[in-house]
């Protein structure tokens, strides 16, 4: 760790900002993880819808809770669409949140870099 001879003193305020940045960064990664999981689910639902189109109009078995429920193709289609809409909304909301966090992080970065220059590192390793 090279010592910077004239590194600026760290004030309580700076520390609070660094802490805030740390929190945001953690939160950012958590949300990214959630989005990834939801996107996977959304794709699965889409696959299911596509498969359903190829089905021959028989009763389908819809995984519901811990059981498979027998239902008509139309009902299954409806349920899939509803689920799809819900998860897509969730994704949009999460992505909005992600953007807000990014913005806050960028703001803090500017402040902290302008004070500490290259004696602080806020980038991902």
């Amino acid at each position: 760790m090279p010592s910077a001879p004239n590194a600026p003193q760290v004030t309580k305020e700076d520390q609070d900002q660094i802490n805030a940045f740390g929190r945001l960064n953690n939160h950012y990664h958590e949300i990214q993880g959630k989005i990834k999981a939801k996107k996977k689910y959304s794709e699965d639902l889409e696959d299911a819808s596509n498969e359903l189109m190829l089905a021959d109009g028989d009763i389908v078995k819809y995984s519901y809770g811990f059981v498979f429920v027998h239902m008509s193709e139309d009902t299954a289609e409806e349920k899939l669409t509803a689920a799809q809409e819900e998860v897509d909304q969730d994704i949009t909301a999460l992505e909005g949140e992600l953007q807000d966090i990014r913005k806050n992080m960028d703001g803090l970065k500017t402040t902290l870099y302008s004070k500490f220059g290259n004696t602080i590192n806020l980038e991902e390793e």
Partner: protein
Amino acid sequence: MASSEAKNMVKLPPVEFIDDVDKYMKDKKPDEVLGQLQEKFQTFKLLESRLLQSRARMLGKVPHIEKAIEMVMLLVEKESSSEQITVDFELSDHVYTKATINKGTQNVYLWLGANVMVEYSLEEAKGLLEQNKINANQNIANHEKDLNFVRDSITTLEVSMARVYNWDVMQRASAKGGSK
């Protein structure tokens, strides 16, 4: 499924911020101070991983509760339609059998844990499960608060360690410069 886990696991005092390293280090040995900081750092790190674990456990519970709610909702829906539902349910791992649920099924049994199942009406079951879900999410939120506190402490300690270390290096450098 009733969860009443400890509300606040963190009982450690908040980490104090070092205002002025010069003043703080007066009459102190850098090695000792660094050792103390390191020790605190370890304590908080341990706490962090414990919190993360128990949060992951609770996060894993929520989908289960949601599944149960879904199922009860299906039963409620069925009550207002005239159809009976046919389901395949799991008898044992990979063994499924067919069952039909008639209209007029008003009760479900909820597994409460400790080998106890209790019969509830559909509405009651729905209410209870939803309350469980709220509790679980509340618990997770509490954990998040604790985690934030612990992470702030960790960051503060990291910064403190770096500052004390740098202070020491500069002290030595100026001592060397002075003796030459």
